[in-house]
């Protein structure tokens, strides 16, 4: 911000710092997570992919931006369409942001090393089953909520009689491809970002 005293009015030529850019990016991440649902609808894809922007935000702007954007997405959905208990899905987005940040720090989230990227995506998917099952237990009573995996849920329930096992198995089937493709998408889009759009403060 350039402040001119006296006759000239205050003019703003560029943001004062990266902090405000990062704050402005948080709603963008939340909205991108939402709009992905529209794209998934258009393309008739059998996945959710509504965490990819959380991963993208973490990669391009840092952990807290990705986590806040993802959490905000869930807050908005909970206060509008999903109902109050659904806000706890926000913790999934925080977890996704943390694990993405860890993999990004060790250099696994890069299109230049596709094997590591795929491994990271699978690990994110597998480990995400734990918080997903915990939330499904508290909010949905471990009921089947997604038609895509309902046949698997029914088959496991019929063979084990245990809805916890049925919920875990159907979550694994849904989560691994969902998080794998989300991470690949985030890495590819981040790799195409021009350097002038950088959202990380320069290192001292």
């Amino acid at each position: 911000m350039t402040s001119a005293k006296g006759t000239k009015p205050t003019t703003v030529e560029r943001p004062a710092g990266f902090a405000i850019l990062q704050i402005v990016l948080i709603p963008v991440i939340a909205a991108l997570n939402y709009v992905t649902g529209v794209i998934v609808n258009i393309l008739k894809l059998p996945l959710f992919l509504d965490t990819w922007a959380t991963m993208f935000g973490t990669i391009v702007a840092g952990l807290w931006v990705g986590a806040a954007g993802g959490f905000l997405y869930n807050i908005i959905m909970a206060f509008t369409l999903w109902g109050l208990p659904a806000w706890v899905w926000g913790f999934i987005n925080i977890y996704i942001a943390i694990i993405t940040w860890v993999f990004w720090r060790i250099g696994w989230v890069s299109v230049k090393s596709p094997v590591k990227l795929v491994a990271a995506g699978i690990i994110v998917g597998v480990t995400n089953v734990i918080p997903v099952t915990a939330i499904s237990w508290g909010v949905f009573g471990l009921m089947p909520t997604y038609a895509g995996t309902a046949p698997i849920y029914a088959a496991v329930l019929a063979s084990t009689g245990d809805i916890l096992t049925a919920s875990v198995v159907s979550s694994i089937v849904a989560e691994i491809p969902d998080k794998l493709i989300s991470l690949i998408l985030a890495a590819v889009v981040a790799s195409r970002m021009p350097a002038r759009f950088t959202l990380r403060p320069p290192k001292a």
Partner: protein
Amino acid sequence: MSNTAFGILRSGYVARDTFVHRLDGRTKFLFFLWISLFNYIFYDLYVTIVSFALVMFLAFVARIQRFATTVLVIIVLPIVLLGLGIIGGPFGFVHNKTAIAAVQVFGYTVGIYLEGTVYVSVWTSRLAVTITAALLAYVTTHPSDLAAIMLKSRLPYKFAYAFLATIQLIPILTNEITTIYQAQVSRGLNVQAKLIDRFKSIIVLMIPLTLGAINQTQIRAIALESRGFSAPVKKVMLRDPKLKASDYAFISLMAAMTCVFIYLIWTRGLVPFMVGIEYVRPGG
């Protein structure tokens, strides 16, 4: 779900002059929290049915009943059908003992069971109550009041900005993705292609959308700065919502009902009215 969700988020506030609209936003959000909490505490279909009747009555008073019904049909109904078909049906839910209707097929009993049906009904009506209460609070509160309430509740103004900006950005980005989609279709994008090709199509849609949105953040940040967004001064509000007599009456009613609920839990437990149905924890 997305088209309906988009419609709701796009329209946001539904302008009417009703009793519910005139209530302060804090009262409506308190009601939303209160009714959601008690519905998740009780395991009783009668309690959730009465709660659902109450929130639907308020939706009628606020004249948003069509809105609420559409959302419930799209979000809750599929879960009801899946749950009744699988947990209420013959797929081995361990608590199923009492058959409501059953037939013998090749020596196997295929039927609908009372315990599974009640389990699914309780959980899905909890969802229906909390979703309707959320819509009631959200679509009857003006966005400016929403921001003022957040600031009055001592939430950081940056959070209030992020919340409201997201609601504004969703329709903007949805319009942009429609434009990008049409441009890509004119360049040969095939949305009827094989699954793998459709996955590849996400990238050609997402890259222009994301880069456009990131570019906009720079402009948005400059605009915010020019209005003193990060200036170290106390922020002022355009609107100053205040609690009225009707708000105090509504809150008093909730407080009285809270006492009744606590008494019910104390004397009759978490299943106060349903007879002959055991309390089933999630997962059995």
